[in-house]
């Protein structure tokens, strides 16, 4: 993976030079498009058919974990939440959500780990662990096709903070997320098409990773490309960016688990 950094660096510098004066605004609602729209035919086919989408392997493992007793409480997620196709329907479409106990926004991974620690008395899963990705994909799958919802007033401060981060120039390359994803989407960064950067399909099966990965992993990739120090997994800044991205993608359908190049 580190092998592709110099390429990113060089191209990003070139791109930074040509967009230095760009000053675009938000993408109009009716012009928003998911990264799916620009996938090649084969990658689309892979995402469209559950039996050829490798992420299905994680969804099935997530379903098994959902029904498995865990922790010193010796309870399964299913014992409290029942059938996930009903109880988890639409849940992933409105995360990050404001948690009343923590008095802060939390993303779906953090929500799952809260139930791990508070309700199952078990140790939390590590970020990007197979188990956490599997449960997140399984829960996310229950919202497939549903529109992303971002209406909770209590999320406003996080969304605002996320927007600031998105617009702010960072890293050695001194670029902002917006310079690529608002101002230059549809253009190419070497062979990669710059997408609008909507979080519609997470966790995704990324062909480059040969693995499933979370939205935060995706953001770290972009930040490393910008030669900025990525936020720690679960950091408030990372969750704020996620909340902003979900607000920015409001109304677009959830595709979880998506496939991306």
């Amino acid at each position: 993976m580190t092998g592709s950094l110099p390429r990113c660096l060089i191209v990003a510098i070139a791109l930074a030079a040509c967009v230095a004066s760009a000053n675009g605004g938000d993408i109009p609602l009716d012009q928003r498009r998911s990264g799916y729209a620009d996938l090649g035919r084969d990658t689309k086919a892979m995402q469209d058919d559950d039996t050829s989408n490798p992420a299905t392997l994680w969804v099935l493992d997530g379903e098994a974990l959902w029904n498995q007793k865990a922790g010193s409480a010796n309870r399964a997620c299913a014992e409290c939440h029942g059938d996930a196709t009903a109880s988890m329907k639409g849940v992933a479409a409105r995360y990050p959500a404001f948690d009343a106990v923590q008095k802060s926004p939390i993303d779906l991974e953090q929500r799952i780990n809260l139930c791990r620690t508070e309700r199952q008395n078990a140790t939390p899963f590590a970020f990007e662990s197979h188990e956490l990705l599997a449960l997140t994909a399984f829960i996310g799958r229950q919202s497939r096709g549903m529109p992303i919802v971002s209406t909770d007033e209590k999320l406003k401060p996080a969304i605002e903070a996320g927007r600031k981060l998105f617009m702010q120039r960072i890293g050695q390359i001194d670029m902002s997320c917006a310079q690529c994803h608002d101002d230059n989407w549809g253009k190419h960064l070497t062979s990669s098409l710059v997408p609008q950067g909507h979080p519609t399909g997470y966790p995704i099966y990324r062909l480059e990773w040969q693995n499933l990965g979370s939205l935060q992993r995706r953001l770290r990739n972009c930040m490393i490309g910008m030669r900025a120090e990525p936020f720690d997994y679960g950091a408030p800044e990372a969750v704020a960016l996620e909340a902003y991205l979900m607000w920015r993608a409001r109304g677009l359908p959830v595709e979880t688990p998506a496939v991306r190049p």
Partner: protein
Amino acid sequence: MARPLINVPAKVKRGQVFEIKTLISHIMETGFRYTTTGQRIPRDIITFFSCSYNGEEIFSADFYPAVSANPFLTFYTVATESGTLEFKWIGDNGFSETASVPVTVE
């Protein structure tokens, strides 16, 4: 957690050519990569796959390090009799996984 996923039509007509799709979770570690401290990551791949239809081998493949993680294979066969398709994956470190699905020929 190795897990195979097979997609075969539930019913096929006698003489019909039908598609068989298989997906299995496997890291397919090439053996050519190194850790950040310079240690070689040992090879861990699937080396062989086969499919038999009512006991007769109809497709097999040798795998090499260039095959992606979670290999997805599709191939075709002709529907002869109702029965079972059996799948087998063999690999490094004693890896072995099997799956079987029924086929109904009308």
